[in-house]
């Protein structure tokens, strides 16, 4: 393994992040705070408890997942798209680095950023709601797993995209709706049966549900299934990435 190479990529990407740390942090923290104010405090005060927790606390895991997903896709997508766009990718591709090492470097950096932001939001949420985390270790594990799998997806998008518009299109058109319909702000048991069943096809549901379980010990779907769903999703992304490097798709003419 070329660990120095992996570290070089990871450091380089993190440096980019810390150069604009204020923008990187302020925007997600501010927008989640707004969610808390609007949904948690203003509307939430009129909503009864869900699964035994106040609505304000109930949406915390969903909000964190929402942000971590968006950040993972965006960071990993941009991380690989940008060097491709300005041409500096050549040095990574001609260096003695394997595909696995390149992915660990870029995806590792994207995960680190996204998880960091997720934790900052978690800390912020304690300022708004009173809650306890039932399974903190599982919470962290789940957060990292989620971030890894969606960073892998972002990496694929970054390689596939031929323009910044394309890079932003998929998250906007596909991922954001999935996140909102994945039970971030409600329990799917609140939906009519047809929509409940349809929701089961939404991968984000399993993430939100599993993550919420780590907070409150209650979930829409069994935790084991959530875990399997994340692993399957990550596996699928990994196979696509393996194919990309083997075929040289949009990397090597």
């Amino acid at each position, binding site marked *: 393994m*070329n*660990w*120095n*190479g992996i*570290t*070089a*990529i990871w*450091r*380089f990407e993190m*440096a980019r992040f810390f*150069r604009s740390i204020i923008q990187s942090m302020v925007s997600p923290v501010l927008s989640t705070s707004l969610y808390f104010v609007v949904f948690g405090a203003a509307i939430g005060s009129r909503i009864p408890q869900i699964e035994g927790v106040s609505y304000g606390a109930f949406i915390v895991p969903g909000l964190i997942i929402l942000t971590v997903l968006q950040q993972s896709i965006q960071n990993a997508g941009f991380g690989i798209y940008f*060097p491709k766009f*300005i*041409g*500096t990718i*050549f*040095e*990574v*591709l*001609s*260096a*003695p*680095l*394997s595909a696995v090492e390149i992915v660990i470097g870029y995806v590792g950096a994207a995960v680190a950023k996204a998880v960091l932001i997720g934790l900052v939001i978690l800390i912020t949420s304690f300022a708004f709601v009173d809650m306890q985390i039932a399974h903190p270790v599982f919470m962290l594990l789940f957060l990292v797993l989620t971030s890894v799998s969606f960073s892998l997806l972002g990496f694929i998008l970054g390689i596939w995209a031929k323009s910044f518009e394309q890079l932003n299109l998929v998250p906007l058109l596909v991922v954001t709706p999935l996140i909102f319909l994945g039970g971030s702000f409600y329990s799917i048991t609140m939906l009519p049966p047809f929509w409940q069943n349809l929701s089961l096809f939404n991968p984000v549901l399993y993430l939100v549900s599993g993550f919420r379980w780590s907070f409150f010990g209650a979930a829409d779907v069994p935790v084991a299934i959530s875990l399997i769903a994340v692993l399957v999703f990550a596996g699928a992304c990994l196979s696509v990435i393996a194919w990309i490097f083997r075929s*040289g798709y949009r990397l*090597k*003419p």
Partner: protein
Amino acid sequence: MSSIVNVSGLGKTYEGGFTALHSVDLEIREGEILALLGPNGAGKTTLISTICGLTNATSGSVTVGGFDIREDWRAARRLIGLVPQEINLEPFEKVGNTVRFSRGLFGLPRDEALIDRVLKSLSLDDKKDERIRHLSGGMKRRVLIAKALVHEPRVLFLDEPTAGVDVELRRDMWELVDQLRADGVTIILTTHYIEEAEAIADRIGVINKGELLLIEDKAALMARLGKKQMVIELAEPVDAIPAGLMDFDLTRSDDGRGLTYTYEAGGKRTGITRLLAAVQGAGLVLADVETKQSSLEEIFVGLVHEGAA
């Protein structure tokens, strides 16, 4: 001399079906400076990219330092430094950081002293903390070279290192190449400038339309094709070459005013003095005398045209 890069039967057909390289065979000797000359679209960059692993070959094989670029790609790539044709740099990065990054990619530990040395050799020592977008074009090109040198490659590919570079900087670049050669680095550079190849290369290869038309020692190439000519313009035309000048193997121009004498450039006995004495002896009056050297340019143009015909 042992070879360090071995290209055999290398072919590259791009996805659209365009064949950029037709079975190229090339042996690069350790420690030499090889100039690859060729017009736009000849396939120079494609050849370099394939050796460096940036494009996948369609056929043939390449070894670098004895390592196959597909089987032993890690070992092969460790030996290679690449300075691309385009200036591909992150504008907001600092010089020092981007150079450090390049070294890390090759799996090497940090070495600030080495980075400082490389930057100094490129007169960039005062730019280490400068953002790349604040540098001039020539400086950016040198940053690219620094990035390619910082893992101490044995083979350096310079894809048009002096394109868009002013005369002074070009001289600096040539000096740098000389210095690298003294350190034992093998250098392959592509160029459109024949005088550049003439000035610094040990061997010259000519590529056109994806084929290596010729590869030869510069000195031998110049000697083989580098004749000099003296054109004598006469005040009065002559109908035939005068008898007294028969020994000189002259050619007469159609209008009878010009006589052309061909001789070995740099030869000890050029025969010019004898010829001029004989011209005077034949009673001819000179209007003008001109000498020409067939430059690489002409050789090159000739070859490319032959190839096209």
